[in-house]
């Protein structure tokens, strides 16, 4: 009986292992970069909104517009349309490296909105109290707003990662590598159903791990509930 499993692992083990690694590399590297850009955008969107700490109508509108454009392009279109830019930046438009720039470009605006949303959930009184203590705006952001929003931001990370996992699979269609690539090449073009099924199972497991880990961390760092003590 175990011969079927052994055979499968022998034949595809390395391929699938590499696929998982490629997927994780794409996911983690692009999410990390997207969070650096997206957090800055999200903070600026929050601060410049009407009635916020530094209302600037024009900047807020233009930035909101840019973010919306970034979010409205379907990923596969974005991936193809910025290929010259990708090539100039990382020297290739395929493989794991070639897909990171489009992943960042599509994820950063998403992250910006998630961060903006998380910051908006921080009670107004806490922010005003920090201001009334004589804190500068950067100090309010770094020492009050972002720490207060952190549990919500961490929950946002799980949503971002899972959405992006979907993008990495789409990127497989243009030879990006990773689990999506394997599913398309082996499962779709070569009708190797077992590979397709295992790939799907691996993706499901990844999603579950991401969700559980982020939930766990968010609960651990959130001091708002009375339950802990």
């Amino acid at each position: 009986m175990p011969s079927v499993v052994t055979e499968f692992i022998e034949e595809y083990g390395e391929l699938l292992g590499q696929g998982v690694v490629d997927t994780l590399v794409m996911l983690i590297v692009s999410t990390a970069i997207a969070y650096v850009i997206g957090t800055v955008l999200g903070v600026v969107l929050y601060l410049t909104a009407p009635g916020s700490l530094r209302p600037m109508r024009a900047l807020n509108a233009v930035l909101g517009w840019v973010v919306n454009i970034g979010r409205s392009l379907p990923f596969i279109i974005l991936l193809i349309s910025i290929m010259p830019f990708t090539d100039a930046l990382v020297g290739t438009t395929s493989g794991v490296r070639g897909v990171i720039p489009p992943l960042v470009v599509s994820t950063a605006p998403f992250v910006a909105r998630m961060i903006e949303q998380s910051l908006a959930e921080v009670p107004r009184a806490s922010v005003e109290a920090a201001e009334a203590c004589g804190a500068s705006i950067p100090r309010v952001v770094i020492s009050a707003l972002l720490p207060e929003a952190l549990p919500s931001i961490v929950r946002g990370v799980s949503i971002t990662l899972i959405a992006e996992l979907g993008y990495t699979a789409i990127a497989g269609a243009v030879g990006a590598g990773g689990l999506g690539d394997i599913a398309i090449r082996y499962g779709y073009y070569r009708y190797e159903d077992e590979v397709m099924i295992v790939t799907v199972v691996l993706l499901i497991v990844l999603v579950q791990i991401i969700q559980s880990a982020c939930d766990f961390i968010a609960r651990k760092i959130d001091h708002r509930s009375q339950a802990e003590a």
Partner: protein
Amino acid sequence: MIEIQHLTKTFSTAAGQAHALDDVSLTIEDGDIMGIIGMSGAGKSTLVRCINLLERPTSGKIVVDGQDVTGLTGAALRAYRRRVAMIFQNFGLLAQKTVLDNVCFPYKAASGRVTAENRKRALELLEMVGLAEKASSYPSQLSGGQQQRVAIARALACDPEYILCDEATSALDPASTNSVLKLLRDINRTTGVTIIVITHAMGVVEKICRNVAVLEHGRVVEQGSVADVFAAPQSQAAKVLLERVDWDA
């Protein structure tokens, strides 16, 4: 001494211009506990928020110890805000920081870091408000009255000359209200800090204030010592707030 001179604050709303404050002039003497009382929408919160410039007045001046602070910005504004601490109806504590870190926040705001000396001072303040043993708790683990006392300790961190209380006891039950008011009165007596109390409850004014101004529709309609205003209220607003009207009429 805080002198509020011809202060006006106008908000633009969909329905047109709303005058939250209309030519308000008041003087608050050093060491006083001054009550500013009025019904909801009378403009008292706007007034107190103009004092520390959380709101910018449309016209008029705030003069503190002879210095016009109305136009302050940047570092000068932040330095001024450290002289004028504020406590809020909803406490305004940071939920993800411990009680001690909350009390230390003004130090962080001032210099970007918290020294061992700052922490020692913060613990003394927590001792003073009776919450030293809660230093490493989080605000969600405290009652409303305790949270407000933490907020008072935070307000005292930078040794302010003035404390603005914006409906500080409105969210508290009577027992917590009394303990918070008593604490404010004691602080006023021991440190001489000037306290400005915004409230819609005459009981609060009666308990701790020496002077009072009655605000109605953004105007000061009556002011004087608490004893005089309570003995013979002149304005309709004061009579209503003191429940000296025949409500069946």
